[in-house]
């Protein structure tokens, strides 16, 4: 493989512990962004439904990031990705493209991991 930093990490299949660790940090990243966005919205526009939705999402994702169960993590990732996809389709927030890519990437990783776990494919 060409030695581009980060590329190896991008294409490798994680072990269970690595998957839990990575999804923990991604959920925390998304949660922190939602929290920051939510409080700024409260400052600018008050406690409006979008601001509360952001803060609620931040709280849920932060809570889920501490639960080290495969299907809970998978559900959080898939649910959050669905929210981002819905947001992208309705509000057309361009930053959603970036988050959608992260979400789809992690769903792919988790599905790959579950196949590895059940021995359906051979992983190197």
């Amino acid at each position, binding site marked *: 493989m060409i030695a581009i930093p980060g590329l190896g990490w991008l294409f490798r299949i994680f072990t269970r512990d690595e998957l839990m660790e990575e999804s923990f940090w991604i959920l925390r990243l998304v949660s922190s962004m939602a929290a*920051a966005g939510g409080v700024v919205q409260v400052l600018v526009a008050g406690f409006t439904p979008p601001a509360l939705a952001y803060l609620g999402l931040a709280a849920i994702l932060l809570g889920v990031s501490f639960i080290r169960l495969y299907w809970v993590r998978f559900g959080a990732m898939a649910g959050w990705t669905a929210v981002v996809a819905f947001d992208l389709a309705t509000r057309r927030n361009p930053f959603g493209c970036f988050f959608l890519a992260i979400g789809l990437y992690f769903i792919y990783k988790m599905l790959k991991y579950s196949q590895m776990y059940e021995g359906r494919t051979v992983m190197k």
Partner: protein
Amino acid sequence: MRTLPRTAAALFLFLLAAAPARADWIDVKGEGAMNGDIVEETADTVKFKDGEGRVHEYRRDQINFMEKEKKKPKASASPMSLFSGKKETAGAAPAAGAAADKFAIRSFLPEDSPLKPAEEALAAGGKTFRDYLYYDADFVEYLQRSARSLEKISKDKTFKPSNLGLALAGLVLLLAGMVFLVIYGFKLMMSMFEAGFLWGVVFLCNAGSAYLSRMLGGPFGLFFSVVPQALSFAFVILHWPVARRAVTMQLYSLAVFFAGWNLLAMSM
């Protein structure tokens, strides 16, 4: 303190929303640039109606520069309109008189190049994607539309009585958020230096470019201000396992800082 963020937000929104409505521009020798409507164009004269409704007739040789407003198709309400196939593609030649797509990819290939269809398809795809993201408007109009809807939301606000405890809690959170922002900023700098000396230099350039870009100004200034930021973002992507703690904690610190600001604002 209660009114400061609202005033700042309102000023920002006003500046965004009050950007002048675009119309035709004409620059006449000896009279300067004017904004209005080009009423009639002949081979050697142009009739121009200015902002006060007066119609002037200029010879072509009097005019330095002239620009007609871009007429856009009406924005479609449904995202499904993307699939209706009614849109013009960027690859097709624009009709005579119509303004060209500002952001379209310029053709670098000769007319008879075998790669021409691929280039046109790329341009058409890019235009479709931008139209989808910005509701068929350009980016400035999209920002103005967002600003107007934010302005509508921020209008109904009620004042609350003064509350000293809330103000104190707000100050504490504000200070804590600032302190943790700085601490995790230093942590990010340390991890960048650990990953490589040049990465650390990139981080330091973020501070330097803030001054350098203002001294240089113009496109060079913009370039020097954006490069270290883009490289820092690249560092976070490429060295994510190293940078993740500092980045997420900085964002949480930002949330704490703004939560403190909110409490302070609510207390007054």
